[in-house]
């Protein structure tokens, strides 16, 4: 497996609106994704993870103020926002699936028509007969038991889980190198969530495809991702190998998040440890650590400067506290 | 984040839109002008100044009545503007005339006679030096005629135009212009003395057509017409303001009628059981199929043409869409959790509707009303245009639509007297545009999706 990163982003800043009154959705985020890896992005609402996934897939609106030190996809510099070059990248190199399974499919076209349109646009199969059989094959790959019938169905006739599998087929039939899954299972049942996430894991292992999995479900991320990045208010708080972060979280926010979940096994705590206050909704440019006002372990240094990035190479964080 | 009520937030959004603000100001000005008409103009909309005819905008004329009368010791019959003065001077210039009537049959001259003495005439030659003017049936004097010949049994000369009517009125004015100077002095509102060219008189009567000017204390007393007059000499500004009262009232009240009926039917359908809901809405669908202008015209023709009837007829036409909107909104709101919570608290249906549903559906309903008002005004204008004006005590009340109709009829062959059409049309266009832009602004401001930042 090659070590060349498929995706490399350094120092990304995203701002909506004007200098004084705008919203800084992302403030200085680095990202690296290699072949066969699954990178999980965790965080609550307003942390900027959705903006990040839109940034990487080139879906940010043209007027967005975006700056970065470097942004490379498969070794080449990424096109500018709104450029037509993104259309070539999407589908062939980068594919996406989103949160609302039924809403992301065209309600007027059958599943078959939508699959065939994608196959035709990317030149994968051009004849009618060929595209029908290829479409059917992909439906089978995502474990849809009766592809022939489903090809003739409309999105509203299928369940959420079925639609999300169709979306997965649509995303993968062009055999992209990177799959961006932005909260793919939030709207689904627990059993369906497992099915979809299993499919993503298996299919990516087969083809060596890299996956960027954005979710607020830490449990799912802990199981599925190799590397993890925990975001808060537009900045990355802690990132590195998932197993290391989960066994010994070193950032107060990650720790608090993990403690705030009722455990599924093991002894029941008397009280859940609360993080008081709420996640910030509109982010201004941070001068200090954004978690300061809610952090249970803040020290004097936190009131003075933005924390530096420290930690070992596989497990880094942005915090003033000593790593124990 | 400011914690103001949704109403205040909505109003703030509305006032942040310049077009909506300008439109609101325009509408307020129009409403104040029309309903405060008597404050802004001293003219009455029906007062005719036939002798003056159609005057262009920003013109003056002497303060006159059709007939001026002064009798010693009695109150004078003069224009109200003159009554406060003590000394009045009239400058009179008139020509005596004889009137000839020409009756036509099948386009040919059938009978001709002098009105004075009823003297019949067979053949008449009009020469250029004669001063002849053609008088229209109900209007002021028309143009001078060229030399022509009128002979019994022959066709009328083409000078009189294509459709001169069954009877032609011709006035032969004498070459001699009579000039008179009359001065009248008043004391305590009664006539003290009358002086005609130096001679004292006890009684004086004169027609407005013959009076050139009126003076008091050496200054001419004139009345001002901001927008001119129509062909019958009626002040156009006053007519537009009074006409606006009718148009705006119809717009407002008919919309109110449609709102009330629509709310009632919509709520009924929304809370009724499925069968009755479908029944009511099927009824609405059937009513939609009826061509409404036709129905309104029928109603107005069969029943009275009073203002009330117009309100009812137009309102009854508009409520259908309102009921659909209300039903959809009420149904959607009834399924929301806070209505369930109110039910759990013990609220019954009337309470639910009044406290929880209606305040929250006001947005779309207000928006629909601001769209309905201009539509109704336009419908009423159409009715007035085709002649179905509002009637009160047997007389027609002219709304903007009738004024436009009259304006169209008044346009001369080469676009003269254009202001009689342009003024009421502009008033209507400005008001309707302002209402529509305000409606647009309200739609943006009251959109419930905007409430969450």
């Amino acid at each position, binding site marked *: 497996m090659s070590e060349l990163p498929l995706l490399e982003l350094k120092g990304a800043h995203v701002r909506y609106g004007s200098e004084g009154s705008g919203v800084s959705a992302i403030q200085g985020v680095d990202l690296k994704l290699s072949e066969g890896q699954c990178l999980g992005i965790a965080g*609550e*609402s307003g942390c900027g993870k959705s903006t990040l996934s839109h940034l990487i897939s080139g879906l940010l609106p043209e007027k967005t103020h975006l700056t970065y030190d470097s942004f490379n996809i498969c070794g080449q510099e990424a096109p500018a926002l709104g450029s037509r070059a993104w259309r070539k990248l999407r589908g062939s190199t980068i594919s996406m699936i989103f949160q609302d399974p039924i809403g992301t499919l065209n309600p007027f076209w059958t599943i078959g028509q939508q699959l065939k349109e994608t196959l035709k646009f990317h030149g994968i199969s051009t004849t009618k007969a060929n595209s029908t059989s290829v479409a059917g094959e992909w439906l089978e790959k995502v474990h849809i038991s009766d592809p022939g019938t489903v090809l003739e169905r409309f999105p509203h006739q299928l369940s959420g889980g079925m639609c999300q599998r169709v979306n997965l087929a649509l995303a993968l039939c062009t055999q992209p190198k990177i799959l961006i899954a932005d909260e793919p299972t939030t709207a689904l*049942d*627990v*059993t369906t*969530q*497992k099915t979809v996430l299993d499919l993503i894991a298996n299919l990516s292992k087969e083809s060596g495809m890299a996956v960027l999995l954005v979710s*607020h*479900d*830490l*449990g799912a991320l*802990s*199981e599925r991702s190799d590397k993890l990045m925990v975001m808060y208010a537009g900045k990355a708080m802690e990132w590195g190998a998932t*197993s290391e*972060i*989960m*066994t*010994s*979280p070193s950032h107060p926010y990650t720790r608090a*998040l*993990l403690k*705030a*979940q*009722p*455990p*599924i*096994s*093991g002894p*029941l705590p008397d*009280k*859940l*440890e609360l*993080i*008081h206050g*709420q*996640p910030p909704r509109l982010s201004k440019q941070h001068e200090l650590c954004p978690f300061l006002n809610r952090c249970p372990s803040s020290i004097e240094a936190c009131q003075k400067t933005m924390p530096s990035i420290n930690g070992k190479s596989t497990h880094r964080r942005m915090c003033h506290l000593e790593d124990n | *984040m*400011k*914690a*103001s*009520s*949704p109403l205040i*937030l909505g109003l703030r959004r509305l006032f942040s839109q310049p077009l909506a603000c300008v439109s609101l100001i325009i509408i307020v000005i129009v409403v104040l002008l029309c309903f405060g008409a008597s404050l802004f103009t001293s003219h009455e909309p029906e007062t005719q100044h036939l002798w003056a005819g159609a005057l262009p905008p920003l013109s003056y004329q002497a303060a006159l009545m059709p007939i001026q009368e002064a009798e010693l010791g009695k109150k004078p019959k003069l224009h109200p503007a003159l009554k406060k003065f003590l000394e009045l001077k009239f400058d009179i210039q008139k020509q005596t005339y004889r009137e000839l009537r020409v009756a036509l049959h099948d386009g040919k001259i059938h009978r001709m006679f002098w009105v004075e003495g009823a003297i019949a005439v067979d053949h008449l030659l009009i020469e250029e030096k004669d001063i002849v003017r053609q008088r229209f049936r109900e209007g002021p004097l028309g143009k001078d005629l060229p030399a022509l010949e009128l002979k019994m049994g022959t066709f009328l000369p083409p000078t009189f135009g294509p459709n001169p009517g069954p009877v032609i009125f011709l006035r032969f004015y004498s070459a001699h212009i009579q000039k008179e100077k009359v001065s009248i002095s008043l004391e305590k509102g009664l006539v003290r003395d009358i002086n005609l060219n130096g001679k004292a008189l006890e009684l004086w009567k004169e027609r407005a057509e013959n009076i050139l000017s009126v003076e008091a204390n050496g200054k001419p007393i004139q009345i001002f017409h901001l927008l001119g007059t129509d062909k019958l000499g009626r002040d156009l500004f006053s007519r537009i303001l009074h006409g606006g009262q009718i148009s705006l009232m119809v717009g407002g009240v008919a919309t109110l009628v449609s709102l009330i009926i629509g709310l009632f039917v919509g709520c009924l359908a929304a809370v009724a059981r499925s069968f009755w809901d479908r029944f009511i809405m099927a009824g609405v669908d059937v009513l939609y199929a009826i061509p409404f202008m036709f129905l309104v015209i029928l109603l107005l023709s069969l029943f009275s043409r009073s203002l009330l009837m117009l309100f009812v007829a137009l309102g009854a036409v508009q409520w259908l869409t309102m009921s659909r909107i209300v039903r959809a909104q009420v149904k959607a709101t009834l399924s*929301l*959790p*806070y209505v*369930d*919570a*109110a*039910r*759990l*608290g*013990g*609220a019954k249906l009337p309470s639910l509707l009044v*406290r929880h549903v209606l*305040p*929250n559906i006001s947005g779309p309903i207000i928006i629909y009303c601001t769209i309905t008002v201009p539509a109704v005004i336009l419908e009423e204008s159409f009715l007035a245009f085709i002649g179905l004006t509002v009637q009160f005590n047997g007389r027609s009340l002219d709304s903007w639509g009738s004024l436009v109709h009259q304006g169209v009829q008044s346009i001369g062959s080469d676009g003269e007297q254009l202001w009689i059409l342009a003024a009421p049309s502009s008033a209507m266009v400005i008001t309707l545009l302002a209402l529509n832009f305000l409606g647009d602004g309200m739609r943006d401001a009251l959109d*419930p999706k905007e*409430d*969450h930042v």
Partner: protein
Amino acid sequence: MSAILSVENLTVSYGSDSTPVVDNISFKLLRGQCLGLIGESGCGKTTTARAISGLTPYQGGSIQFNDKEIEGPHPSIQMVFQDHSNSLNPRMTILQNIIEPLRYLGITTRDAMTKGQALMEQVGVDLSRSNDYPHAFSGGQLQRISIARALAPEPELIICDEPVSALDLSIQAQILELLKTIQTETGIALLFVSHDLSVVRYLCPESVVMASGKILEKGSTQDILDQPQHPETKALVQAIPKWTHNQS
């Protein structure tokens, strides 16, 4: 402890549909108990909750509350809903929203306002914001206000229909702790409807599992998790992510 709620052979169907949404289910809720109602979407748990609260009529079986048949909404049974953005009347202040149930109990406005403010303190909402409108509050705060409203008529049972599913993780914990505190302090019974087994495990010692309108299992939540009897329950338990980290 006596049963305040007794559901027997409950059947609910919509319209002339032959398949009932809730099919012949029976369970009991004891006074002061917290019972979990678990299942995936479409299993009928929300319909069951609505039938118990009196909002949705039922066609078969009986629901007895304090030994009386449920015929409609009753102030003793209140609900907290999942959709926090639509749980409060946007045109009323939050204090007005909270004391709304008290109107129908014949309590004067002044007394109601005092009670409302006490409730705001109990759920942890700043009193200075009594006259603010719902749009100015976050999801977690809105749920607190909904809970305050549910507490206003002093109910004996509060049904929580997925109250934390739409909230951020850090806020979920706050609301769960609030519910737990209220339950311990006031002794109100809680029927907690959810699909999230870890949350149900934390709050409810006993649970009922539903699927396709029927009850699959009922009993101790821990037993259901450790030894699920029904294959569908097994699938549900197996689908829960196994955390590989140390939480304590």
